[in-house]
């Protein structure tokens, strides 16, 4: 492969290469108008060519930025590649961000061009137009509802292509020349980090820093033109960009765009990707779905499911890893594969998955094992926006639930005494855009990138990440307190949607719980429990009881791990509202903002530690129909049983 790709140091060059080498293979599919509309590589290249001509005609120049605000659509990818052809820099933005959140990136990068998916995105841009004086041109993909928009900035994508077609006719070699004048070190794209704290930072990546790791990882998993991936995560996120763009450009596999966010599950089942990527949250939701639906199944199916999941838990992972397994178990597993695992993989659309990755957050080991046990080759990797994702990858046969795997070839790793992980790799970003201060903080003069993640190497040389360095704390007795680790363990239960653990510098660990309304609702319905909504459910004693059982099981697990056995959860409460990104409680990637929550619900935290059995809350709540009101009630606080640490037991 490398021979084939020699000299192809930019994405546009790779694109043109595929158009020549595998012009008839599908490049991008999109479920639209009922079928999977397909662009072959040749068609894709042609589309990009026309788009580039159009953009150039409209004045997009080398080095300038173009914002892309869209869900995964073929035209988004075309526009992105077109910009790269011209040496312009695509800046994908989160399509679900509110208008105000877009102001900073546009101002920061002095963005003059924008590609918007539809009326909704256009409206957002028009709203912030007065603040973003640089923004001159907005192209929209879907003309629906746009008929009466008369703003001079607006232009339909089709019109742009028409312009491009004319320009191309005038100067057929224009695009090829532009592509040829690009080089690997040129900036390929800029990603604004979501930023758990502070303002977003534009992470600048060159073609080389994106292509390098992509290629290495693709080789590791032997990806080729026959592979298929479903592009369903926000394009503004580097993970999505790497998997559904960079790696596709490197290997020539096919990117499939779902019809809409609601149809991802069905589309996934139709397409049956061979290469799969999902953050733990998605996998978690999926498992919750599976559990809920299995609970509705007939007695026989439930029995089969339980029996065979036991078998899978016992031997599934080992069989996937190619380890020796007794013949009887192998037979049972085969049977299970016939009636449970196979169909299950099929209904969740993962029948054909050769290799799947999860990253972005630590994944609960049980969750991780579940997928592997039913025969899906799910692996973990470690990386970040700044490192172009691939830092550590679990090679086949060396998959462990609790590590991120060894370093990818070409990547250097080391830990500071504070256990912070430092990285040096070809995939490292160039800089934070217009933010030398931040760049200096993150990247030391020797080229080491400070990840801010705490962890260590295990005995096999795999990297084990516990938490963010700044989040890792210690209990009053000095025990290591890794809140995310605890939270992840809790979240593995389908009934628990979010958990926030407190304990740094305190004598014990206490937790806020967000129940999963769907799973608990289902559970309540089966028990003929009437309820009116999340708030109602969350206050039920039965639900508290259910959650307590979950927590106690986690405590039992923790008691077996000497280093953190003392961080068992002593007390908890169930929050009266769901944590939401709109309220600032979660990040846009739906990570818990623990500090913010701790402050916002300070009263509740102190009640937990004060040993009270209930606490009064009064809060603004938004009802499902959009109205708001005040909620006032007493939240219950419950104790959970803690277990004597196993180590001390053994010692005794």
């Amino acid at each position: 492969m490398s021979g084939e790709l020699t000299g192809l140091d930019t994405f546009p060059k790779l694109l043109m290469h595929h158009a020549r080498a595998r012009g008839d293979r599908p490049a991008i599919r999109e479920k639209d108008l009922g079928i999977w509309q397909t662009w072959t590589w040749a068609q894709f290249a042609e589309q990009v060519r026309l788009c580039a001509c159009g953009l150039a005609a409209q004045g997009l120049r080398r080095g300038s930025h173009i914002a892309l605000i869209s869900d995964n659509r073929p035209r988004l990818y075309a526009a992105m590649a077109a910009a790269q052809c011209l040496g312009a820099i695509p800046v994908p933005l989160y399509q679900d961000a509110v208008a105000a959140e877009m102001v900073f990136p546009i101002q920061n990068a002095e963005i003059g061009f924008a590609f918007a998916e539809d009326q909704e995105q256009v409206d957002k841009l028009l709203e912030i137009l007065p603040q973003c004086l640089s923004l001159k041109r907005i192209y929209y993909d879907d003309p629906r509802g746009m008929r009466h928009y008369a703003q001079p900035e607006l232009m339909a994508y089709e019109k742009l292509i028409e312009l491009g077609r004319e320009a191309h006719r005038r100067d057929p070699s224009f695009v090829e020349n532009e592509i040829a004048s690009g080089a690997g070190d040129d900036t390929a794209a800029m990603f604004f980090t979501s930023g758990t704290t502070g303002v977003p930072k534009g992470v600048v990546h060159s073609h080389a820093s994106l292509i390098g790791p992509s290629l290495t990882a693709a080789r590791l998993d032997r990806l080729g033109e026959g592979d298929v991936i479903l592009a369903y995560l926000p394009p503004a996120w580097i993970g999505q960009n790497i998997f559904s763009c960079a790696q596709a450009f490197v290997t020539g596999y096919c990117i499939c765009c779902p019809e809409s966010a609601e149809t991802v599950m069905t589309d996934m089942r139709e397409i049956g990707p061979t290469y799969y990527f999902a953050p733990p949250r998605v996998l978690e939701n999926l498992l919750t779905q599976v559990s809920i639906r299995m609970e509705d199944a007939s007695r026989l199916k439930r029995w089969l499911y339980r029996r065979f999941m036991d078998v899978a838990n016992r031997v599934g992972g080992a069989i996937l890893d190619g380890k020796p397994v007794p013949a009887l178990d192998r037979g049972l597993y085969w049977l299970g594969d016939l009636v449970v695992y196979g169909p299950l993989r099929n209904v969740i659309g993962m029948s054909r998955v050769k290799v799947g990755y999860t990253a972005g957050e630590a994944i609960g080991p049980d969750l991780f094992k579940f997928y592997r046990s039913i025969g899906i080759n799910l692996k973990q990797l470690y990386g970040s926006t700044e490192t172009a994702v691939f830092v550590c990858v679990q090679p086949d046969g060396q998959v462990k639930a609790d590590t991120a795997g060894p370093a990818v070839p070409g990547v250097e790793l080391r830990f500071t005494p504070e256990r912070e992980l430092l990285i040096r790799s070809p995939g490292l970003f160039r800089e934070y855009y217009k933010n030398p201060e931040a760049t200096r903080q993150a990247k030391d003069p020797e080229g080491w990138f400070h990840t801010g993640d705490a962890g260590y190497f295990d005995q096999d040389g795999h990297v084990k990440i516990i938490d963010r360095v700044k989040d890792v704390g210690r209990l009053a007795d000095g025990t290591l307190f890794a809140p995310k680790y605890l939270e992840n363990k809790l979240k593995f239960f389908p009934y628990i949607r979010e958990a926030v653990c407190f304990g740094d510098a305190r004598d014990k660990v206490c937790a806020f719980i967000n129940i999963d309304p769907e799973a608990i609702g289902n559970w309540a319905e089966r028990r003929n429990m009437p309820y009116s909504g999340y708030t109602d459910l969350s206050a039920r004693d039965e639900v508290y009881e259910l959650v307590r059982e979950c927590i106690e099981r986690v405590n039992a697990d923790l008691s077996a791990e000497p280093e953190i056995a003392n961080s068992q959860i002593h007390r908890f409460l169930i929050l009266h509202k769901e944590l939401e990104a709109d309220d600032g409680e979660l990040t846009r990637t739906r990570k818990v903002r623990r500090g913010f929550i701790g402050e916002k619900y300070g009263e509740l935290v102190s009640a937990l530690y004060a040993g009270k059995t209930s606490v009064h809350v009064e809060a603004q709540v938004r009802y499902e129909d959009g109205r708001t009101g005040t909620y006032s009630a007493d939240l219950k606080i419950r104790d959970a049983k803690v277990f004597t640490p196993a180590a001390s037991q053994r010692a005794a």
Partner: protein
Amino acid sequence: MSAARRAGDVILSVQDVSLAFGGVRALQEVSFDVCEHEIRAIIGPNGAGKSSMLNVLNGVYHPQQGKIRLRNKEFADMDSHQAADLGIARTFQNIALFKGMSVLDNLMTGRNLKMRCNFLQQALWLGPAKREELEHRRAVEEIIDFLEIQHIRKTPVGRLPYGLQKRVELGRALAAEPAVLLLDEPMAGMNLEEKRDMCRFILDVNDHYGTTIVLIEHDMGVVMDISDRVVVLDYGRKIADGSPDEVRGNQSVVDAYLGVAH
């Protein structure tokens, strides 16, 4: 919004139409016209003759007296099939979908008029028949996309909730690419949100396809919001005709509406 709409020439005109069933006079010398691209509403209290008017317009009922002119051609005795041929499509108050068929098939049926292959070609699935089928499928998919009913494409309509059925019925009428679209209480029995959606679709249809729309509706508010011009009927007679604002202020309209229990 309606200011932006491009009302054109008169496309449909009704002159002195009278209709009676036995002794009951459903319509008495009603006259009005409909311009191209406009949304024209017919309102009135229960039993005012709205449905009869609509049924006259697409040939289900034959008026005893009066003329209907479509694009300046006069039609005295057209039946509903001919009306469809001329480009008049409609929806029904009590959804008249083909319950045993999928959404897709219902919409495809809406395009039956446009199909040219004979049944022998279809039976053999010969080139032209297959091609025709696929072409029309594409056109129908556009409508499915337009009405945002992708997820129920292959569901039998009998299984759909009421609101969606209404939308599918609109789709079926649209599939015929009508010049004039008659909507019979498109929002009857809907909740607020469904009504809002339906309004949006009606406006979008009018906007996107430029379809002339004649609609009957019970809900005054909705009618006033979306229509360009309104005809008010009461006891089979026209009592007012004009823009929503004009009609709203008309005393006889107010009386007519107050006169009935509402």
